[in-house]
């Protein structure tokens, strides 16, 4: 598909292989929901075209074509399950088949099967109002799948659920999304890792990163992706084969992943786990030292994640032990130094 929508600043070019699940990440307002709406048919793009299973969803050349939502075979699942309140759970799930013209009994049988797939079979006779958020979302998935869509779109399906309900939904999704062409918009890296084979990062209405999930996570190319992946990222220009300087003059030494050319844009990535925190600027060769101010401390299992601002609007993460926090008397507002070995920093062309 391609699509532009000037009103929302969208300009994308995207292709999915059959049976592929792609995760769409991006900051708020990046255009993720707009993209899904264009595909579902609830928004008209200014230009572009999309083809799904040999069916043209919309096009502008050689003539304007626009297929209404009910003819597209695209099912949309949002944060709000939006189960039809006046129908039972079973009739909700059977809706797609009935709309396609199936007889009530056949539709209901198919519905029961799908309810079983999402582990919600026992809710069949109930009303949507009687379900919890997680249960309703599972039923909504069954309803979307029972309609036998060629493409499934999921818009942050777990966002409105409480933490306890998410794992079950994730498990269900992993099972039903297997081999199904789907796009899932998410904020949670875990979803991207568990459910998608490919990740696309949308920012400002444009695709800024795209690639297999593991690759994008290990080698993020944008600060946003890095933040999601829980990595530290510094953008700049290569000043040597192993050195990078960012826009503010900060020098970073690292180990190149692929050979760098002097002057070309480059990225430096390192994990919070290899960052040490010092009260004073540490000496020692082959060490990068960054003066930072602590912004917040976040306990994570046995460790504490320290988020600090580098004084230029960027932030940096470091994982330290609780003991270290006590020893160094770390608290928000304190000025410290983050240091990381050059061997722990990966450099690659940006």
């Amino acid at each position, binding site marked *: 598909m391609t699509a532009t929508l000037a009103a929302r600043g969208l300009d994308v070019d995207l292709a999915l292989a059959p049976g592929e699940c792609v995760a769409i990440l991006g900051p708020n307002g990046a255009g993720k929901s707009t993209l899904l709406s264009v595909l*579902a*048919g*609830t928004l008209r793009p200014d230009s572009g075209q999309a083809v799904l299973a040999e069916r043209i969803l919309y096009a502008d050349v050689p003539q304007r074509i626009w297929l*209404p*939502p*009910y003819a*597209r*075979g*695209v*099912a*949309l699942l949002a944060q*709000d399950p*939006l189960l*039809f*309140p*006046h129908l039972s759970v079973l009739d909700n799930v059977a*809706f*797609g088949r*009935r*709309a*396609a013209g199936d007889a009530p009994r056949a539709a209901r049988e198919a519905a029961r099967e799908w309810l079983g797939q999402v582990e919600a079979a026992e809710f069949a006779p109930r009303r949507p109002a009687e379900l919890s958020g997680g249960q309703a979302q599972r039923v909504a998935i069954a*309803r*979307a799948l029972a*309609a036998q869509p060629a493409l499934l779109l999921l818009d942050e399906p777990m966002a409105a659920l409480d933490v306890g309900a998410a794992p079950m939904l994730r498990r269900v999704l992993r099972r039903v999304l297997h081999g199904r062409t789907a796009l899932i918009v998410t904020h949670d890296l875990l979803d991207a890792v568990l459910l998608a084979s490919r990740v696309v990062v949308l920012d400002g209405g444009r695709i800024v990163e795209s690639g297999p999930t593991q690759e994008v996570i290990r080698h993020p190319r944008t600060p946003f992706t890095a933040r999601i992946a829980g990595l530290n990222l510094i953008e700049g220009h290569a000043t040597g084969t192993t050195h990078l300087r960012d826009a503010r003059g900060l020098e970073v030494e690292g180990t190149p992943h692929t050979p760098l050319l002097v002057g070309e844009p480059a990225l430096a990535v390192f994990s919070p786990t290899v960052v040490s925190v010092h009260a004073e600027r540490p000496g020692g060769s082959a060490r990068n030292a960054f003066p930072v101010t602590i912004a917040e401390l976040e306990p994570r299992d046995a460790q504490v994640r320290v988020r600090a601002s580098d004084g230029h609007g960027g932030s940096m993460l470091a994982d330290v032990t609780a003991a270290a926090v006590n020893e160094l008397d770390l608290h928000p507002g304190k000025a410290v130094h983050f240091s990381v070995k050059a061997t722990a920093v990966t450099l690659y062309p940006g």
Partner: protein
Amino acid sequence: MATRIAQRTRTDGSLPRWVFVPAGLGALFVLLPLAAIGSKVRWGTFWSLITSESSLAALGLSLKTSSAATALCLLLGVPMALVLARTHFPGQRIVRSLLLLPLVLPPVVGGIALLYTFGRRGLLGHTFEVLGLQIAFSTTAVVIAQTFVALPFLVVSLEGTLRSVGQRYEVVAATLGGRPTFVFRRITLPLVLPGLLSGAVLSFARALGEFGATLTFAGSLQGVTRTLPLEIYLQRESDPDAAVALSLVLVVVAVLVVGFAQGRRES
């Protein structure tokens, strides 16, 4: 008795207490005239008066025509409300204001307008008469007059409900493959049913009480065009007791209709 009612009234304490005074006055304002009618009824002759030939004819005609008018209102009003609530076209506000005009128009003016349209020398009436269709002085004319005044009630009521219910469910239904008519039948209609019913009840009640337009447009003939309000108007000339008795009948019928609809809604 007032203190007993006060003791059994339940509020959650957030309603300002003084609200009850104007509310009570308003209720009295509506109920006292009804009680006044009831007090003037001569109960001895009541039954014979309301079961007289002319009374029964008028009552039967009223119920028949009001039902037909309500059905017509539903047929025309539901699509109108859908278009007003769910589409956008230039000049929509003006069109909506014009469509609601029968609400503010004095019914007699409405009758005159209908006369100029469907009357023998009217815009369409002339053509109808040539074709052999007699509308003037017929029961059809009564139904037309009642539909004309009752239609806005249904449209307004339903449009409000449609707007508040929103289109989210219809959008979802469409992505599941539901064609517009299928979605309308299985999603839209069931969701707006309460608003639709209350609009239909309002229309029925309005049609039942319609007088001015019917008198001007359809004429007054027993069994054909003389509905209950027209019968009451006529009886006033010669037999006020009959007029009072019939008025009470009209009030009771109206209360039954509204009460029935409320009961359904609450269930």
